[in-house]
């Protein structure tokens, strides 16, 4: 999409008078050259930064994924092994039975819950008066501002087997036997706690963004709806959702990217650092391969796989987003 924007520029200037004099032609050519290079010159600083910060590491990771890499004093040595790491990775049972399902289901649950909760909170904020809206906004922004590490430790602490608050409450009402229950060792409860953590950390962004969208919807639409006898449920689905659909698409796509590559929140949980294979996700798996087993090639291959996965999802989203845009026009 960036390309079409850039190409549009020069086309406008192509109003060519029937010139015959060579000087005039030269001037025109110069003008055309300037027209062609100026956008690139203007883009150059940001392209330089992007190339240095994003493209270069990306190329390195791609290269690394095709190598067996050994750390050596003063610079490591890589031997190219072709696509061996990818074939090993894609042939591994651990990837298909544990890593990918964990990553995908966890991300789907997190995205769904984050967007749903965020929207509900945004609807609430939209109805509040200025004072309460400010108070509530500050409260949810505090959840957003909390560093992932701190947040994770708080959730671990709450669900600490036997001693944590949730465990004690669940034990006292007879739901569990605190002495024999450890939520962190089972895949389901482990990811349920991680989901709570990630949703709690992620919903404020959705709430604030959706609220910004909600505030742009003209009140008249709702008044008209009410006159026609639409109830709150119908007004939400028939007026709110279609009007700010692009906002929903943007928060969904961003949440998807974030929730697919969750690492900290899993790695810091008890058993999440590699001891319990059942709870591996792609991020942790890639980290363990690269930095615990020093198998940088496989780690890089897993990272590339995650990138491709996200790229595919993003493309689908963006296409939907733009098709939506065209229909609106």
């Amino acid at each position, binding site marked *: 999409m960036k390309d079409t924007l850039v190409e549009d520029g020069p086309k406008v200037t192509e109003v060519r008078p029937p010139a015959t004099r060579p000087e005039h032609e030269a001037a025109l050519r110069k003008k055309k050259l300037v027209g062609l290079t100026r956008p690139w010159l203007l883009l150059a600083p940001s392209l330089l*930064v992007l190339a240095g910060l994003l493209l270069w590491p990306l190329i390195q990771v791609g290269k690394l994924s095709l190598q067996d890499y050994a750390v050596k004093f003063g610079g490591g040595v890589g031997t190219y092994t072709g696509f061996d790491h990818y074939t090993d990775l894609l042939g591994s049972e651990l990837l298909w039975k544990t890593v990918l399902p964990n990553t995908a289901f966890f991300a789907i649950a997190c995205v769904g819950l984050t967007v749903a909760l965020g929207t509900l909170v945004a609807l609430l904020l939209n109805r509040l008066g200025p004072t309460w809206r400010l108070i509530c906004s500050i409260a949810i922004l505090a959840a957003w501002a909390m560093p992932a590490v701190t947040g994770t430790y708080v959730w671990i602490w709450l669900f600490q087997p036997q001693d944590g608050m949730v465990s004690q409450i669940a034990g006292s009402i007879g739901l569990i036997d605190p002495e024999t229950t450890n939520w962190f060792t089972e895949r389901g409860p482990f990811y349920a706690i991680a989901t709570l953590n990630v949703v709690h950390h992620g919903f404020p962004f959705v709430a604030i963004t959706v609220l910004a969208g909600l505030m742009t919807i003209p009140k008249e639409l709702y008044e008209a709806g009410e006159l026609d006898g639409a109830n709150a449920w119908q007004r939400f689905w028939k007026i709110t959702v279609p009007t700010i659909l692009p906002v929903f698409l943007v928060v969904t796509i961003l949440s998807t990217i974030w929730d697919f590559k969750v690492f900290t929140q899993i790695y810091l949980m008890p058993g999440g650092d590699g*001891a319990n294979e059942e709870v591996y996700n792609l991020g942790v798996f890639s980290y363990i391969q690269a930095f615990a087993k*020093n198998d940088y090639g496989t780690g890089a291959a897993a990272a590339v796989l995650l990138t491709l996965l996200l790229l595919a999802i993003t493309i689908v989203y963006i296409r939907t987003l733009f098709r939506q845009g065209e229909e609106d026009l």
Partner: protein
Amino acid sequence: MKRRVIAAGIAMTLGLTATACGGDDGSDSGDKADGKGKTLTVWIMEGTNPDARPFFKEAGKAFEKKTGAKIHVEYQQWATAQKKFTTAIEGGADQVPDVAEVGTTWVPQFAETGALVDVTDDVKKSGLGNDLVEGLKDAGTLDGKQYGMPWYAGVRSIVYRKDVFEKHKLKAPTTWKELQSAAKTLKDKEPGMIPFPVAGGAEMFAAPFIWGAGGELATEQGGTWKSGINSPEAVKGIEFYTGLATKDKVSPAKVNTWTEKEVGDAWGKGEVAMSVNGNWTPKAIVEANPDLKGKLGAVPIPGQTGGMSKSFLGGSYLSTFDTDKKDLAWEFVKMLTTGDFAAKWATETNYFPGQNSELKKIEAKKDPLVEPFAKQMLEAGATVPKTKAYGEIQASKVIPGMVQSILTGKSSVQEAADKAAEDMDAIFAKDK
């Protein structure tokens, strides 16, 4: 055009990083003999010595007096240091410290990259070789080459609550059976306490039982390592250790994911009656909970039917890196690992020094919370396989994973041990 722009960007970024790196260390170069005007960069692990800063201030002054060179100490975190070292090694002589504290299990990995200086001859020349604690010297020696000086060492034994044991007329265990029955009695009589935590995240809690049953973590044959963790002996040891939790229920489910840190915290809260514990922990426990002063006891980890089970003898080396100041660095290492500074470090940290002569002095003091550990260290210390692959096996938590899957009932002991052996062998094979 686009490609050229990108190329320029890359070149610029590289240029920037290169200058940034070069700028770190401006004060090197010069002749070797005199240390005047030079500064040694020293990496030390945070947390071993609570008073590390005053210690190094003093050491720095003494070193400057001796050689004219200054030292600059940078404190590192245990949790992240290995990665930091790896990155620095990759960066080469400009990035690595001149002297660093290196955990014994890291030595094979770092030595293989060529970053550490082989000091075998220097040790011989200085006449220090014969005084080094054998197990510790061995841990940092590969193919006959010694990569640094043993600095301090620690070992794990059994720590127990003397007051609780006396109350129920229990004796410190001398066999596995006694350990088991003491823990079971404690479970009945002290329902608020954890009789014996079987911590799923603590590899070095499980290892003594594998060694004690006659098993090995891995064995070397003709240069190739092979896992021994699923041998009948090792499985017997694992079965006993995990059985304490799964059959005897002397360790509740919450302990399944605990590491040594959580066990230490629970000791501080007065929740633990007996556990495998490091020699550096009793003092820390009493500091966290002054009520426990005088109530702690220690014994070596009992053998199956008497004697002792071997326990991991871990520690740190002071190693020199292959920089242009390595001769000066060696002088600093010698100063810290011998004589007064070595003794002072050991006292302040509650660890054992790496020299027999200093260790004997400590043993002679007959401290009941030190002597059992010293005995364990001198008579029943063990090292883990000396290969880079074993470091990777530890980092990928193969043994904690095995123990946890048994504790949670997901696999039988044999299944879990077979799986661990398979994982270990895969890593050994990869690094061949």
